[in-house]
């Protein structure tokens, strides 16, 4: 299996010399005249990460050392640059997983059924802000936020309603939830159990990536160390009890959206992954849990750099797992990832153009070999997607998958001198940041020093300046601007009504449950947390007797404390 040992340089010195000679002649005879006649549009062309892009690439750019097996290999083989599976989309196209959820659990249940009826193949739940932070709908801080950015979940009852008439053994569900991930997974497990589906049969993902909350996204609750401990509780519990569950989705998406470049997104995500594995091996052998790790990236608009990023990501992770952590199973070296097109690339101006942006970004994700994909809706610079906008977004994926032929061969861009060169460059730049974080003592330390936070803030500001100076073109924003009436039909949520109904249900659930059982379950949880045990089994018991999300998180906050960010800009 290990062809990595077999050397196979693709080009020899003599061939490269011939190309070089020919190229210098071409520069004199052909290029100079051409440039005199029609000068190039810019002096320097760059990717969004600032990597300078040359006029043309040849085998000379890859060099005589460029080794086929070391750099590329075959699909399904180390270092997995060409994809995780031998047949990729010829066997099964990626999972089309549309992030959705709003209002009450009843409304979200309707939206999920609508998406399933349209041919969506996996569910992805968006929670509202109070839920993301582990607050109940009746918390004073939740006022005005209940049901807005996603669905409100306070107790098991809400989860039961969300999955009403959706067979939980037949769908897989992604839950974008981080500090409260143990609680939401527990609710999912018990809701399935009530449908008669044991936890061995459920499938899906909890995002459960607490480190990136400190770097971007900012839905942190606990300080970094206990946050990582809870992340690992979910991983360990899933490894032992929920065989089809992806306990974590190590996410670059939010890091990118917060302002990181493609290179920074890649490096910081891998550095987060390294930190989880480093802590994980203190509790379990690496090959036991590494196959269960999954990732999540952004697909931005700079087409080739994104493809290079995805391909480099697989190669780097395989190397990290094999060489740094001594993983033996190939599955431990797999970087399985979900992709979402770039929310920040969407414009409020001329919003229909966003359909095109999303299609191009989705294409990059597919050419990069993603396992699943969410395509953004064109109205998201204004509000949550309307039904029509969400449908167009899903149809975009279906067109790519079934009409274009792009999914018919594995890794079609391999061997492009430019794409391979760029894959190497993105990798090289990402390693520099990873080593820097290693020198700081790993990601937890780097976060405490504010390093990734500053890196992202700097990049975000630089990018905005580039847009203002017109160095980076955004159609409809700084070029081809139109006078337009800024109104499109958007999803309307009767928020005060949602909040009222949600609080009402919460009160009813609290009134109907057995208070003694709740009290016992919560004190058992507290004892387990203090003893540093895995809290998952205790949270499941608390959820089962309808303890609320806020109550459970409250117990954990008492034990672990809360993180307060020092704001920097």
């Amino acid at each position, binding site marked *: 299996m290990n062809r990595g040992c077999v050397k196979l340089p693709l080009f020899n010195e003599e061939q490269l010399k011939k190309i070089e000679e020919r190229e210098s002649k071409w520069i004199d005879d052909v290029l100079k005249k051409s440039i005199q006649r029609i000068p190039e549009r810019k002096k320097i062309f760059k990717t969004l990460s600032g990597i300078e892009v040359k006029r043309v690439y040849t085998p000379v750019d890859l060099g005589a050392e460029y080794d086929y097996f070391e750099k590329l290999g075959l699909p399904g083989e180390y270092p997995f640059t060409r994809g995780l599976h031998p047949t990729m989309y010829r066997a099964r196209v990626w999972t089309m997983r549309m992030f959705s959820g709003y209002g009450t659990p009843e409304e979200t249940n309707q939206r999920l059924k609508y998406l399933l009826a349209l041919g969506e193949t996996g569910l992805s739940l968006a929670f509202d802000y109070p839920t993301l932070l582990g607050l109940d709908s009746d918390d004073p801080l939740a006022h005005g936020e209940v049901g807005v950015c996603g669905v409100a979940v306070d107790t098991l009852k809400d989860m039961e309603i969300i999955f009403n008439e959706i067979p939980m053994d037949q769908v897989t569900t992604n839950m974008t939830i981080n500090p409260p991930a143990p609680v939401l997974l527990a609710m999912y497990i018990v809701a399935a159990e009530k449908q008669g589906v044991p936890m061995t049969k459920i499938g899906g993902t909890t995002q459960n990536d607490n480190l990136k909350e400190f770097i971007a996204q900012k839905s942190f609750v606990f300080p970094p160390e206990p946050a990582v401990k809870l992340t690992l509780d979910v991983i360990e519990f899933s490894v032992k009890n929920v065989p089809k569950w992806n306990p974590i989705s190590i996410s670059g998406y939010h890091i990118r959206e*917060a302002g990181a470049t493609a290179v920074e997104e890649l490096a910081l995500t891998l550095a987060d992954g390294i930190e989880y594995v480093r802590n994980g091996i203190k509790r379990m052998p690496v090959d036991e849990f590494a196959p269960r790790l999954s990732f999540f990236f952004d697909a931005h608009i700079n087409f080739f750099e994104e493809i290079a990023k995805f391909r480099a990501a697989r190669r780097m992770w395989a190397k990290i797992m094999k060489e740094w952590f001594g993983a033996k199973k190939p599955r431990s070296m797999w970087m399985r990832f979900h992709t979402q097109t770039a929310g920040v690339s969407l414009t409020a101006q001329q919003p229909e153009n966003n359909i095109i942006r999303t299609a191009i970004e989705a294409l990059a994700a597919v050419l990069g070999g993603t396992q699943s994909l969410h395509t953004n809706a064109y109205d998201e610079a204004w509000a949550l997607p309307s039904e029509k906008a969400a449908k167009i977004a899903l149809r975009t994926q279906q067109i790519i998958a079934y009409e274009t032929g792009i999914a018919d061969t594995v890794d079609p861009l391999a061997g492009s001198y430019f794409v391979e060169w760029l894959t190497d460059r993105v990798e090289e730049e990402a390693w520099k940041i990873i080593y820097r974080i290693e020198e700081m003592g790993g990601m937890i330390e780097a976060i405490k020093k504010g390093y990734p936070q500053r890196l992202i803030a700097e990049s975000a500001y630089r990018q905005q300046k580039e847009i203002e100076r017109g160095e980076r073109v955004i159609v409809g924003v700084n070029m081809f601007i139109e006078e337009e009436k800024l109104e499109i039909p958007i999803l309307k949520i009767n928020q005060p009504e949602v909040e009222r109904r949600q609080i009402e249900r919460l009160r009813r659930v609290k009134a109907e449950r057995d208070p003694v059982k709740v009290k016992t379950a919560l004190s058992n949880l507290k004892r387990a947390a203090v003893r540093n045990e895995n809290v998952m089994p205790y949270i499941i018991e608390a959820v089962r007797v309808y303890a609320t999300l806020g109550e459970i998180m409250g117990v954990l906050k008492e034990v672990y404390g809360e993180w307060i960010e020092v704001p920097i800009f």
Partner: protein
Amino acid sequence: MDRSSDILEQRVLPPIKRRIKVLVAKLGLDGHDRGAKVVARALRDAGMEVVYTGIRQTPEQVVNAALQEDVDVVGISILSGAHMALVPRVLELLREKGLDDVAVVVGGIIPGDDIPKLKAMGVKEVFIPGTPLNAIVDFIRRNVAAKRGDQSEG
């Protein structure tokens, strides 16, 4: 530059010109702080004094900060969709504390329908995604200049 005209100018203009002071506030529970930080930095680069609250601020916290820092402008950033519940509360509390003269501007994901509603409540301007930084800087400068001008003349 001609130094003599510089000196002359100083005699004509009031000697101390207070820098424009802005509170950039992340109201609500969302953690999308990219816009707030970029705007905060742009305002600082434009010579203004900027106080950034950090994320997850309640209306009460925002107004207390505005009071303590004695700011000319409160720039609210909100992307959670809770603006129609939280922004009116900020305006109400500002009035209660006698800070009616503090200009409030809002930036974030704000549906088109809500923009006139917010303005009717007293928000001076709403900046949607894609707004150039200098448009924000200019708006704040003009707004504060107009207000200070009125005060000195009146």
